[in-house]
């Protein structure tokens, strides 16, 4: 390999290496998307199963319904989709996954609500409407707050929705809960609040049974005694 031919051959080898790196990246990203799809499918099955279980048990006591009826992977799915959105370049596929995820969230939310109505227990839910970094400067901060709430009160189910996602379900939700252009928008246990909310601010909107478990346990025991 003499003279400038060597420069050319080395250029070709370097290009081949970069293409290999790109191929490896695409391969692993596809695997990640497939993993997200698998989780999504599992969540869909979980929700369908929960709905069926709910229908079957409708005639029975609420004691037979427990928290395991809800899919446990919906939160980790959100994290993975958010990560994929920032790191995987396949925008169309991510958008589709996001839409499917949003619908699953809404189904989970509705199921939660129905069970709450059936068993006379108010489900503790937070609907969180966020926007892109440019449209909503406080959304990143709001995300940290909701993470903290979720970790502090595992029984609170937080559903995140991309306000700008082109999906009729989102439009319906924003219309029902009167979410305006001020983001972040939150619906804490049915009450709509606009703009950034602190951990303490959200705590005041949560039911006392959640924020004060000692009192809640006492109340539950008292109810049981009354029932007996």
């Amino acid at each position: 390999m003499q003279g400038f031919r060597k420069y050319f051959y080395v250029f070709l080898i370097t290009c081949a290496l970069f293409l290999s790196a790109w191929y490896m990246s695409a391969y692993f990203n596809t695997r990640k998307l497939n993993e997200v799809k698998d989780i999504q499918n599992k969540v869909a099955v979980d929700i369908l199963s929960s709905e069926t279980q709910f229908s079957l048990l409708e005639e029975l006591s609420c004691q037979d319904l427990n928290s395991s009826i809800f899919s446990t992977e919906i939160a980790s799915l959100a994290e993975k989709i958010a990560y994929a959105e920032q790191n995987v370049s396949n925008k169309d596929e991510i958008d589709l996954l996001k839409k499917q995820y949003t619908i699953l969230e809404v189904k989970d939310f509705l199921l939660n609500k129905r069970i709450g109505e059936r068993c006379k227990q108010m489900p503790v839910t937070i609907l969180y409407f966020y926007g892109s970094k440019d449209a909503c400067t406080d959304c990143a901060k709001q995300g940290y707050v909701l993470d903290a709430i979720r970790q502090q009160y595992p029984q609170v189910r937080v559903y995140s929705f991309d306000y700008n996602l082109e999906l009729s379900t989102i439009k319906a939700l924003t219309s029902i809960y009167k979410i305006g252009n001020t983001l972040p928008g939150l619906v804490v246990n049915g009450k709509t609040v606009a703009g950034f909310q602190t951990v303490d601010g959200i705590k005041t909107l949560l039911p006392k049974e959640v924020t004060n478990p000692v009192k809640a346990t006492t109340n539950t025991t008292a109810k049981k005694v009354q029932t007996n």
Partner: protein
Amino acid sequence: MPIGEVVTYSITFLAVYVQIFMLVTFLERRRDLKAVEGLPVPTLSHYPKVAIIVPCWNEEKTVHGTVASLLALDYPHDRLEVIVVDDGSTDTTWSEILKYKDNPRVRIFQKENGGKHTAVNFGIDHTDADLIGCLDADSFVMSDALKYMVDAFNNHPDIMATAPTMIIHNPKNMLQYAQRVEYNMSAYNKKMLSFMNAIHVTPGPFSIFRKEVFQVIGKFKKAHGTEDQEIAYRMQEHHMRIYHCHQSIVYTSSPDTVKKLYKQRLRWIYGFIQNTIDYRRLIFKTKHGNFSFFTLPSGVISIVAVVYLSFALAYNFVVFLIKKITQLSIVGWNSSSIGFHFDAFFISTRTIVFVEVIIYGLVIFSIIAGTKITGQKKKIDWHVIPYILVYTLIAPFWLLKAVWNTIWGRRQPAWR
């Protein structure tokens, strides 16, 4: 693709290109390396007269070891002279040198301080040897080092200068071990550059020149504290071949503190930038071959790459820090919310990550190959980890400072 990513990919492409160029050269010439592996010290057809100049400036502690290693060289006594030049030392160096005044093989001189290159030039003026070398007074040579070099001169009339393989002498702390790894890698790079006839420095420790070099292109010149680099540039300009004699081993002292290392590297990098600016007429000129198309551009690329990537790293670190501070200020010190949980899903699989793996792979290969070239038994030195850590963390500082000094025309750093 955002502009930042375009720049990052362009720079990493060039970095990979440089490493692949070296690797291809290695694969092309591995038989040449294999052919001399394990061969006994050559028997010379003739013994040209050799003079080794030892420039000293405040070297009271090391000058003895340096001269002793030269006197122990396996070379006929009447064909080797050692010239010790005290460049106006302010400590007891001269009284140490005086101990050799009755040794017929050593000639000693004292002059006013004028810088290392003036001491070497003084020695050149006082010898009629065929081959003239220099050995910094902080280095020691292996006894067979000269024979390998003279053998190269005897068998290849086109070789005008030879450079040795340098190994860190007696490393004691992590920083010095990290430098040993770097020197091993450097042995590989130098050898490949030698195969390409594109060496850009004839290091102070034990580079040997034919006397014709000084007759044709002149002696050492003041050159931003890196005179051994400037003369190599001048030789390349005059199409004089510089050969890396990898079997010639020189042990050199190394900085034992970060501050000393910083000062040394600042001088080297500043010198490289200044010499490259002075000789910019050589860049991308067909008649100067690989030196013009590979060595100089790759040196510039490595400086630009480190400066850019260090800024990018610092930027990302600041963004990360702001994010964490914001998170803490909002939700308080809640260990569960800021803790770490491992999930393979979140390992980055971006293209740049795989490219970085390729670069690190090539760097580790060059360290292993360099260690083998220097004849050391060890195959892989685990100090490669501190080497990567230390140099990733502190190299950007001396590079940035050298660039800063160049832009603002600051004076050159002191050579010692």
